[in-house]
């Protein structure tokens, strides 16, 4: 075990995988000398050279598309997007191409492509650089969606993503990059997709959260604990594939469900989980599921406004109490 930041865990995993397999390479904006604006590719070009650590022009649609083509042609590209907000620039290549190639061509092609980058609030980046966009990609079949909330999960899930023969969208959170945690040194350490993690056990209410909101949910759970309410906190880790069984099992125990994410509330992944839980465990529910998420407005620049848009810890606490009719 080593103590690493989330960013270093990502960087080290990329390096290990590039050592492990010649076909792995990375391309993106400002990754070569600068090492990415968050340092996730720092010094990789020194070890692997600029053939395998490629600076791209600012043309997201095309370098994502080049990743799709290179993957289809037998390479294992990692494409770094500086902000996952920029997936919108490359949407055709992600949703019409990467996601569909295998199915549409009758199952002959493999597209082992990772598109990764950070998203979310925390740096006052305003409307086009602060969004949480992972829910969108859950809706379109053919791509996997991973969202690590700790350094170890970042390392373990990223290894699984790079070794997966399908396109994976890998969402990091900018506010998590400097967080530290223990990461296994084993260069084979991998976390399987589709297995949710129970971050804290509890018996009264189930709170499902991802990315930055796992720590906020845990904070809320600690407050609730003092008031005699025992919250179970679950991180799905991957939205596609989704481990709904762990969540359903938890709700069968607690009878209450809160979903909380930084992504917009309406049509967010929490809504999908609430719907599936309602379908699968309706008679176990003692109160309606509650969804928390960003308000349905553009992420504003001003810190006070930004905080007013995304869910706060006390709102999670309030939602839990509401679910318990307290």
């Amino acid at each position, binding site marked *: 075990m080593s103590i690493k930041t989330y960013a270093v865990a990502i960087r080290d995993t990329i390096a290990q995988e590039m050592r492990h397999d010649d076909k792995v*390479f990375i391309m993106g904006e400002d990754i070569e000398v600068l090492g990415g604006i968050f340092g996730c590719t720092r010094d990789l070009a020194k070890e692997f050279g600029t*053939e*395998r650590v*490629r600076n*791209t*022009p600012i*043309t997201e*649609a*095309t*370098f*994502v*598309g*080049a*990743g*799709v*083509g*290179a*993957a*289809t*042609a*037998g*390479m294992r*590209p990692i494409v770094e997007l500086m902000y996952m907000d920029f997936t919108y620039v490359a949407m*055709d*290549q992600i949703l*019409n*191409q990467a996601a569909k*190639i*295998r*199915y*549409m*061509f*009758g*199952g*002959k*092609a*493999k597209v082992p492509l990772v598109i990764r980058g950070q998203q979310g609030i925390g740096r006052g980046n305003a409307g086009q650089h602060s969004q949480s966009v992972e829910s969108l990609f859950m809706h379109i*079949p*053919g791509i*996997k969606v991973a969202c690590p909330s700790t350094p170890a999960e970042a390392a373990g899930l990223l290894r699984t993503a790079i070794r997966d*023969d*399908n396109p994976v969208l890998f969402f990091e959170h900018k506010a998590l990059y400097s967080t530290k945690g223990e990461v296994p040194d084993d260069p084979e350490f991998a976390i399987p997709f589709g297995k949710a993690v129970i971050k804290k056990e509890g018996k009264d209410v189930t709170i499902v959260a991802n990315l930055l909101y796992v720590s906020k949910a845990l904070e809320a759970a600690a407050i609730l604990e003092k008031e005699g309410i025992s919250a179970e906190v679950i991180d799905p880790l991957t939205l596609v594939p989704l481990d709904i069984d762990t969540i359903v099992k938890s709700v069968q125990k607690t009878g209450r469900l809160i979903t909380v994410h930084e992504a917009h509330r309406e049509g967010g992944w929490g809504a999908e989980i609430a719907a599936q839980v309602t379908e699968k465990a309706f008679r176990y529910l003692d109160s309606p599921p509650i969804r928390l998420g960003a308000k349905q407005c553009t992420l504003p620049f001003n810190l006070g406004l930004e905080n007013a848009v995304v869910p706060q810890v006390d709102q999670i606490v309030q939602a839990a109490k509401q679910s318990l009719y307290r």
Partner: protein
Amino acid sequence: MDRERALHIYATMNRIRKFEEKAVQLFEANKLRGSVHLYIGEEAIAATVCSQMTDQDYITSTHRGHGHAIAKGATLDRALAELMGKATGYCKGRGGSMHIADLEKGNLGANAIVGGGVPIAVGGALAQKMKGEKQFTVSFFGDGASNQGTVHESMNLASLWKLPIIFICENNGFGISVPTWQSTSVKDVSVRAAGYNMPGETVDGNDVMAIDAAVERAKTRALNGEGPSFIECKTYRWKGHWTGDPETYRTREEVASWMERCPIKAFRAYLLKNGIAQEKELDDIENAATAEMEAATEFALNSPEPDPAQVMDDVFFVG
């Protein structure tokens, strides 16, 4: 061009023509559904370009892609089966007319998003370069796609990284109903190559020999590691954009004048005039294409429908 390759090109053009004629016939007889974009009148381009390629070289294709697929090695039976949505089709009936792919033959797939396949071709060429293979990629796209941002970005990236790729713009004069002059700021699309520091040339897309010479130059450059080239092939589609197009945007006279310049007829005349082939063997090639198409039609008509129980297969690779 050696005789063998010349006859292969002639055969390919005929096979494409027979395929397209059969496709329209089956469409009109309600035997196949969906969009069918015909390549009739443009056969010289795919047939000539792909005659210089091996199975390890890649192409990306377009919504008007039957010709590219056949020229790159697709068999008529499985291609037609795909148009009919049959289980024996190249994509098991999942893709249809606009999405024929055959990775074993280096066809990375036809794309129904205009300009969508071009970045993928850049990726194919990048893979070839990184693997150190002596191979190249051709991206086919139309005059409509030439205005898409992805095509410009792809030209820039391929030039920057000196990738072994040839951009082949099939300028058939229209994006559905809109004539090229109304959509495109330049008369010859190939002049845009200069903006990306690569050679560009415009050739008669109905002239096999002109296309062949341009492709040879571009291929040599690609394989020598000198980077991409751009070839604009000026041509014309005889049929509407799709089967059922009212074609109110052009005159019968204009269509007739291009039919006079049929690329198959022109190449046949060239082969005869230069003593490369005799009437009889060219007739035999055409008859063989007709016979192959009849057999392909039987195959496709008699092929099973895909099993709806398998509709969820292949969303993901499960290994």
